[in-house]
């Protein structure tokens, strides 16, 4: 075999350099610019730490940091506490309607988080349906606004991630491990905590990190349901929006602090999961069994209840979209008027929601496959750099990336703000790490010898790549692409910073309509979004056959 670990300026060398150039322009430059802004005094042109001092000296700002931390930690713990047992029940028991529940769980996880927040306000808010119902019979429900509400919405939104991760990990546990435990007098709940949970711990840590990052970066949920409870992204957003055109140094400083925190969390997670890493490989995966009569009721109750609560917000929003409205208020009776005004006012945003993610998706797939190939097959110092660069967006909250791109490309010659291109670039940068990871995993399973065989038969490097390697990766790439697509159409936190009237997407439209109080239109738009999601997932199922969702 040829030594591929040394850099050569062949076709793959060129691709490496181009990829690095793209990252330098669209990631490193804006981030560096942001960093510079945070320590730059616009009036004097001097270096200053004033912005950071301001942040840490005023409890108004500093508390948001603690708030964000508390909320994210609570949501992470709760998501794991719900998602793990559910995944376990799904793996060991035959449950009727399991495949439908599976899809519903994925749908619940794929909706924009703030839609959940908005819907829970409709249900449990001050004049929410459930609240009013209980008030009539004399029971006062606890307040949904603030900490509790944010954690509730985030956990229900994010436990599916843990569920999907844990399901995947459970598939890798060999049945004999469970049998060995049973054989040594350890079964049932005890077996779950002493054997199953420790075995999937690395996966749970990875899922936990993802949940933490998402909830830490989530902008929509605390904005809608937080009220007085201010979190990081909310402050970041409001400071930035307030100060556009003026001194955005302070917003930049907050963004830098956010990145520092996510980086620390990321490194801690890496450290812990490296310490208890071990490979699992199932010859015979765990077999599903019929639950015994006594347990059956509990198993069904838990599974169905959790899924029902998780999917409730979307069902309720869809229901309200068909209600008759008078002005901004829902009235008795049903009509399609919300949809009419949604289409007349927001037609462009529906188109944007398709066009922008579609353009991004093409670029993501191409880049991810190329980068995966470089990282797996041409390992050298430069490709390792590409690997590390591509992981940076993983720890950069969406709002921060949005601000970095906007401030970085706000003046000539790089005048991109307000264009559709910048929205496309933002999505590419944000989604790429996930697609690269999955492509790398696929590629690692294809033996090098197949490519070597093609080379020995006279195929050129590019021909080998496009005619042999890519087709073998195709199935995995397509299913990964569909999932990327679904997450991109529900993206809010970057789009909310970058959008203009012309590039408004559905999520942004829903958000702005909710803020304006146009609940009917918002409900109609979010129902359209849900419909798009469901259709995409059905296509995914069709393409993917019987394989499972992985993120």
């Amino acid at each position, binding site marked *: 075999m040829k030594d591929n670990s040394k850099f050569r300026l062949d076709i793959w060398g060129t691709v490496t350099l181009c990829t690095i150039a793209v990252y330098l322009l669209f990631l490193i430059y804006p981030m560096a610019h942001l960093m510079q802004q945070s320590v730059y005094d616009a009036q004097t042109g001097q270096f200053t730490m004033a912005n950071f001092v301001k942040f840490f000296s005023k409890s108004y700002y500093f508390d948001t940091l603690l708030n964000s931390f508390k909320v994210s930690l609570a949501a992470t713990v709760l998501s794991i506490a719900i998602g793990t047992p559910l995944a376990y029940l799904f793996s060991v028991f035959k449950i009727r309607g399991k495949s439908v529940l599976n899809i519903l769980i994925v749908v619940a996880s794929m909706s924009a988080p703030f839609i959940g927040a908005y819907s829970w306000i409709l249900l449990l808010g001050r004049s929410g349906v459930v609240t009013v119902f209980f008030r009539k019979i004399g029971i006062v429900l606890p307040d949904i606004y603030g900490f509790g509400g944010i954690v509730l919405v985030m956990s229900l939104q994010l436990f599916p991630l843990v569920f999907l991760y844990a399901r995947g990990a459970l598939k890798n546990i060999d049945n004999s491990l469970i049998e*060995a435990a049973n*054989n*040594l*007098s350890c*079964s049932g709940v*005890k077996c779950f905590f002493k054997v199953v949970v420790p075995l999937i711990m690395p996966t749970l840590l990875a899922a936990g990190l993802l949940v933490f990052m998402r909830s830490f970066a989530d902008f929509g949920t605390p904005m809608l349901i937080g009220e007085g409870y201010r979190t990081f992204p909310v402050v970041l957003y409001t400071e930035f929006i307030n100060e556009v055109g003026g001194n955005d140094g302070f917003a930049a400083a907050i963004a830098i602090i956010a990145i520092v925190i996510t980086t620390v969390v990321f490194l801690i997670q890496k450290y812990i999961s490296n310490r208890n890493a*071990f490979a699992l490989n199932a010859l015979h995966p765990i077999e599903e069994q019929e639950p015994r009569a006594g347990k059956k009721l509990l198993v069904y109750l838990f599974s169905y209840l959790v899924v029902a609560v998780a999917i409730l917000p979307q069902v309720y929003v869809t229901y309200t979209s068909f209600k008759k409205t008078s002005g901004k208020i829902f009235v008795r009776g049903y009509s399609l008027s919300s949809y009419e005004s949604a289409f007349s006012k927001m037609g462009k945003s529906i188109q944007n929601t398709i066009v922008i993610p579609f353009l991004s998706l093409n670029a993501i797939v191409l880049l991810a496959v190329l980068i995966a190939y470089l990282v797996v097959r041409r390992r050298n110092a430069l490709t390792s750099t590409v690997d590390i660069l591509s992981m940076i967006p993983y720890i950069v909250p969406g709002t921060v990336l949005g601000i970095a791109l906007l401030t970085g490309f706000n003046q000539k010659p790089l005048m991109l703000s307000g264009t559709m291109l910048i929205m496309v670039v933002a999505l590419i940068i944000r989604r790429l790490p996930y697609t690269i990871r999955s492509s790398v995993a696929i590629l690692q399973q294809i033996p090098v010898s197949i490519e070597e065989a093609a080379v020995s038969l006279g195929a050129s490097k590019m021909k080998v790549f496009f005619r042999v390697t890519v087709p073998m990766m195709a199935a995995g790439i397509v299913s990964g692409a569909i999932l990327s697509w679904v997450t991109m159409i529900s993206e809010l936190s970057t789009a909310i910073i970058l959008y203009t009237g012309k590039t408004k997407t559905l999520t942004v439209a829903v958000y702005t309509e909710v803020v304006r109080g146009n609940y009917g239109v918002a409900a109609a738009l979010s129902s359209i979004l849900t419909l798009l999601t469901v259709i995409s997932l059905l296509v995914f199922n069709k393409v993917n056959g019987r394989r499972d969702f992985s993120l």
Partner: protein
Amino acid sequence: MSKILIQNAVKKYGNNTVIPDLNIEIKDGELFTLLGPSGCGKTTLLRMIAGFNSIEGGDIYFNDTRINDIDPSRRNIGMVFQNYAIFPHMTVRDNVAFGLKNRKMEKEKIQELTDKYLQLMQISQYATRMPNQLSGGQQQRIALARALVISPDVLLMDEPLSNLDAKLRLEMRSVIRHTQKNVGITTVYVTHDQEEAMAISDTIAVMKDGVIQHVGAPKDIYQRPKNVFVATFIGRTNILPAKIEQGTLIFSSGYRVKLDYLDQLENQEVQCSVRPEEFVISKQGDEGIHGIVKEYTYLGLNTHYAVETESGLTVEIVEESSLEDELKPGQNVLLQMKKHKINVFDKEGSRNLVRSEAYERQ
């Protein structure tokens, strides 16, 4: 310590009967091997004993206790799995101590017993390591220590050596054999490797399609197999058609072999099993099956020949290598037999005529 009694055991998957009606008695302290081709139901039977497979009919007893309805975790069984099933998240010591901890034993006692078995399996020096840092053979030792430390009534082993390379397999084979004898535990061992079964077992049960074909000591199974399947499955053999006339076997070319124990039998067509080492090749003479050497392979200790007989059958023959030149392909030869070693089966191949009632009574 227990003996195991299996009566009229039935295993079904839906409408598919895997084991129709199976009876076995396993003596206290013996190493009992279930041997058969893949899919013969040997692992299924082992898992029925362990409690991981349901039992659709019949009874399984440990001594006088019927265990059919006892939960796997209460059967007091030690089990060694094909892939060892070592818990990757626990140290070697924790793996071995796992069963004891579940039995709510005192800490000192756990420590003492764990040490004892770590020592017995010669893995004390790895006690604090994680299993993924250890080789297959060492993992196998952990699995064995973990299964034995709980002083089970019965030890079950499911193809424990199939994941090891050839050299380690030989080493672990003797480790298992010695440990089992030392501890004196009744052991049920599943394998598809007949050489392994011969080397390790007190008693072998040869299985095919869920039915026990032959239960016996390794020597008995090799020398006097109960039917043609057992004869061909254990070791290598040649099956030659022949007929009995007045107590004499007549092969093609008119080769006649007189055997005393055939005297009582009526004239019939039979199948004979002649193992490669039970042939004697001679270049000339007038008695024997005529054949032509097709191929020879020199293997040092032995030389293997493939000889085509007059009737078109190719037989395999093994002879100790001699200093003279080997027989070359094309050479005409005469084949005779070491007649007391050969086995004669009825035409269907289902009964060994050598195993007369008188033989069985011995």
